């Protein structure tokens, strides 16, 4: 869906999304990474469980929510990528956290 055509000067680091390791630039927004990672969505809604992906990228739409390092409902457009970050797409209504 989206790509990064240039090598950036940012350091490439691994991020684990739903168990799969993808490479990302350290410090870029996690939502950007999710928009270039198949199957291109971050969550399903708690109302109808329809798929949503990052839309506004500036913290006002709340469609880029995902589980980041065990914390649910995180706005991934506000989270800079760190090496080894573990991300899970969020499905429907979240469970009461453990």
């Amino acid at each position, binding site marked *: *869906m*989206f*790509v*990064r*055509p*240039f*090598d*950036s*000067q*940012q350091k490439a680091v691994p991020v684990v999304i739903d168990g799969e390791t993808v490479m990302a*630039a350290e*410090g*870029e*927004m996690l939502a*950007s990474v999710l*928009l*270039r990672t198949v*199957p*291109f*969505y971050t969550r399903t*809604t708690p*109302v*109808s469980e*329809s*798929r*949503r*992906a*990052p*839309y*506004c*990228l*500036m*913290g*006002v*739409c*709340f*469609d880029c*929510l995902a589980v980041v390092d065990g914390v649910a*409902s995180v*706005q991934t*457009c*506000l989270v*800079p990528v760190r090496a080894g970050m573990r991300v899970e797409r969020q499905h429907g209504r979240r469970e009461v956290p453990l």
Partner: protein
Amino acid sequence: MSPGPDVIILGAGPAGMAAATRLRDCGVAVTLIDEQPALGGQIWRGIETSHNGPLENALGKDYRAGAGPAAVLRASGAELRLAAQVWQIEEGWRVFVKTGDAVGMVTAPILLLASGAQERPNPFPGWTLPGVVSVGGAQIMLKTSGQVPENPVWVAGSGPLPLLYMTQLLALGGRLAGYLDTAPRENFSKALPHFPAALTGWRDLYKGARWLWQLRRTGIPVISDVAEIEAKGNDRLETIAYRRRGGEWISMPAEVLLAHEGVVPGVHFTLALGCEHDWRDDQLCFAPRLDDWGETSREGLFVAGDGAGIGGAEAARLRGEITAIGIARRLGKSSESEAARLAKSPRRELARALATRPFLDALYRPRPEIFVPAAETVVCRCEEVTAKQILDAARLGGSGPNQVKAFTRAGMGPCQGRQCGYTVSHLLARQQDKSVGDVGFFHIRPPLKPVSLGDLAALHVEESAL
């Protein structure tokens, strides 16, 4: 406990940066808070990150102009609280802020809101599908990741931002499928009377004309007077369709659609704090009522930048300057007459920076369809409430937006009505034959940014321990 700052500034874009720098020059203690991890706001997103050559070039001179002010501010001695979200503000001013896992409170006698604008809610059928991204969002990805759509992309909308984005995209080697220009054709004749006054800002007009010319030169399809668009697909965008005013629907396959219908001031904080607002028919938005120094109807609470009304980056910077002068005066750092003298030159520059605005506002006035979307269009993205459900609920007793919110759940989700508030107000205005200003807006309540019960409870423990 260490004494708090004299002034808290919310938002580190052009307005907040200029105000912070100026206040530091006057010896005022400033705490500057922003939810991004670096300075720059949205217009200069990622300005403190070193970009590679092609990206730097594609972003252009206006973007690079942010680097200097950022460096100056860094050296100014302002306390910076970055990657920090403010979820509630109480009179006093007590600002509740979350940084990483830590929650806390900052207090100051003066609060300056410089938290900018957001893209105008732009509902159309299918706008919630993965693959539909706002143009502003796409540009943020460009600035922060050098990220572009993988395949030739359709852009739909109106305003300077799509033109700028497309120019930047092409400069980076990105590919466009076409531009669906949604500005109504009649806008042109309505904008024309504002043209002579806009000539004071000829540089901005020239910039816009150049973007348009560059776009035309590529030969990609530019389809004008598009009245309606639709996105379709299972689980993600597969097809887009559009209809020109008075024309037939035409559809084509698409993987990504970038959409934009202008920007509106972020008014959630000022609404939550009960400030007076006015409906601005020229920009089709609410804006806080401000005095000459940017002070709201609540004493000690100031607004600068696009949050005061859309004016662009340069106007935001100047409003930041002027407001800072006003705040320094309030704090006794300068006399009334000295403040008036200091503000003279930025006020003159502000008038120049705003000269093109009436022309641009008229030229890019959004098409009416985005305010009264088709019946089955999802209006509230969070709670998935359609235009029809909103109209049906409002029909019962001719209710206002808050009753409609209560009955439909529109505006009750985590975005706090940022994506549906205007649409709900417009739908009711149309149904009840009122002005949007008379209909009003949702009653805004905390939290304005996400916060967990654990975060809140931590503050209770802290309070009890005192």
